């Protein structure tokens, strides 16, 4: 096969692009998946007081500002060598779990989930929440809208503002809650738990009872045996807000468990000439290319990975679903990319249960909500699980707390290599000699990365504009023989 060198000038500006190179026999030789990188983060941050970061970094993503707010706050705690008091920590956790339940709701019902609920063969115009409503009933639309409204109300109460939260700061939070607020939040959380159970039932009825869907989940085109990553608590249970990062190998055995400040000992980044984005990988294993297996340093950080690395969920209903998922799919670990959708709704239920527990915690209305920092600021790392993967904020300051350096690994960046691999596998499975590449094939390839809930840069404009995905099919000379746009 002729080696195609991609001129750096063709590196992507804009939305996602997939290039599929065919060999002499018309089979897939290589695939290249490119997404834009958010640039200039460090330059933007250097010179700013570090305590501003929890308020600034909410703007990095209009979909998951809460994740950046929390990771940043935790990094600031570390910079100032201070820990929030129990009430302060629990208030942050409460907000975060409520956010999680809401965010996963949007993805399951409106974004990635429709692939299953409506079906992978359905026309693209139906693969959205409207298709879900048509399939499941009008009631589900009402519930999803209500779920979003309720979660936003709680987030506004705890976060100070609905979209760009402001309450987390070094050492804790700026605002507590009184009994009246607590009681309202508890009522909302009860509703969230019921909604989580409803969602599990929807998945059960529409997806799991459909053998062709289960076969698709377990198919080789969507399977990938690589390392898994996720935060766990002191009992190795899933935790979205705090704990240590655990990595397990493709067989499910613990490979490493690290504290946030150790992340640079574990993760390195590989550079390829055809993309701006770097590929994080496990340093000790090494970068072996875009390949699977125990000898490849590639890892996944997704809802499925989080459940894979954990020994269980911290709440009962979610634990029951966790057990059922692994029993259905043949035991731990599960490497079926499309099972990420199932893992996501188990997390939705778990987050709702955790939020309810926190809303009932006797300390949640306490008045000691912040430990005032007294130490000289230096350097700190904060890690949370963003819905779409492990999120790391790393700050270095001078003795006044003014930023000198800042680094960020966002959820989707962890998954750049696995997404590329998933697309490669799907393309190889679907495009053979003589295959007519169609919109249906495009959708099947898209399903491979939609399961990751990828974040393609964080501009929040909502108007339809440039197609977010372009798929180029190229011959062995690199010439485009077919292009499909979405």
């Amino acid at each position, binding site marked *: 096969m002729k080696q195609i060198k991609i001129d750096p000038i063709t590196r992507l500006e804009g939305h996602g692009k997939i290039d599929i190179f065919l060999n002499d026999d018309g089979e897939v030789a290589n695939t290249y998946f490119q997404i834009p990188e958010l640039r200039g983060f460090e330059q933007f941050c250097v010179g700013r007081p570090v305590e501003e970061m929890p308020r600034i970094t909410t703007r990095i993503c209009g979909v998951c500002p809460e994740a950046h707010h929390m990771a940043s706050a935790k990094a600031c705690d570390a910079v100032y060598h201070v820990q929030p008091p129990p009430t302060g920590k629990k208030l942050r956790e409460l907000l975060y779990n409520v956010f999680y339940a809401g965010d996963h709701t949007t993805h399951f019902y409106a974004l990635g989930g429709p692939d299953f609920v409506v079906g992978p063969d359905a026309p693209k115009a139906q693969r959205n929440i409207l298709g879900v409503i048509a399939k499941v009933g009008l009631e589900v639309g009402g519930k999803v809208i209500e779920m979003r409204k309720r979660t936003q109300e709680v987030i506004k109460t705890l976060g100070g503002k609905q979209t760009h939260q402001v309450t987390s700061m070094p050492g804790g939070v700026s605002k507590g809650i009184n009994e009246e607020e607590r009681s309202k939040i508890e009522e909302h959380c009860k509703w969230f738990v019921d909604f989580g159970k409803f969602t599990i039932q929807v998945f059960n009825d529409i997806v799991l009872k459909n053998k062709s869907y289960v076969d698709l989940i377990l198919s080789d085109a969507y399977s990938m045996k690589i390392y898994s990553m996720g935060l766990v608590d002191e009992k190795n249970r899933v935790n979205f807000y705090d704990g240590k990062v655990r990595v397990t190998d493709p067989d499910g055995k613990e490979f490493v468990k690290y504290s946030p400040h150790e992340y640079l000992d574990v993760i390195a980044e590989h550079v390829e000439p055809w993309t701006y984005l770097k590929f994080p990988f496990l340093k000790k294993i090494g970068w072996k290319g875009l390949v699977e297996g125990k000898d490849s340093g590639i890892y996944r950080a997704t809802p499925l990975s989080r459940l894979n690395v954990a020994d269980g969920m911290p709440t009962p209903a979610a634990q029951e679903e966790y057990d059922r998922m692994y029993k259905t799919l043949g035991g731990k670990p599960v490497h079926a990319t499309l099972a990420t959708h199932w893992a996501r709704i188990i997390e939705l239920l778990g987050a709702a249960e955790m939020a309810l527990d926190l809303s009932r915690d006797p300390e949640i209305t306490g008045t000691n909500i912040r430990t005032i920092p007294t130490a000289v600021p230096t350097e700190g790392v904060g890690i949370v699980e963003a819905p779409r993967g492990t999120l790391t904020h790393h700050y270095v300051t001078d003795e006044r707390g003014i930023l000198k350096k800042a680094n960020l690994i966002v959820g989707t960046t962890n998954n750049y290599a696995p997404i590329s691999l998933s697309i490669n596998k799907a393309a190889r499975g679907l495009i053979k000699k003589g295959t007519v590449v169609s919109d249906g094939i495009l959708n099947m390839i898209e399903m491979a990365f939609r399961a990751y809930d990828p974040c393609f840069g*964080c501009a929040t404009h909502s*108007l339809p504009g440039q197609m977010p995905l372009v798929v180029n099919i190229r011959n062995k000379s690199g010439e485009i023989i077919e292009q499909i746009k979405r």
Partner: protein
Amino acid sequence: MSARQHTVLVLGLGNDILGDDAVGLHAARELGKEFQRKADIVEAAVSGFEIMEILEGYEKVLLIDAVVTNRHRPGTILELTKEQFRNVVAISPHYMGLPDVFLLAEKMNVEFPTEICILGMEIMPPYELREELSPDIRSALPELISKGKDVLSRWTA
């Protein structure tokens, strides 16, 4: 969002640390100086369901946002109506866009504006963190504001 005080809403959308993506926010802010007694003025960085919640209950909405089509020169203003979105399918794997929002509101009988005017300004893909507008967009902003004023003057006369 605070309680609705008028039947007309000006909604500027954008990300204020992604350069030209903030053009909608700038336009809404300027329009607010003249129209704050006649319309609710909101600057927001939201999408999908949150947009639906903001629009609910208003009769008329002027929505201003940046747009990337790669088919126009940066600074070009596109004027769109709700009807033009009817046949556009969901475009992002990460958030719900306006077409889905409009269709969903209709399907769920949400009390939605009868008239929506969307002013979009073409920008270059905004993937670099910065707070300022580029020179091209800064010089095109007055025209965007002027078009917004035309719409609001008609609606609030």
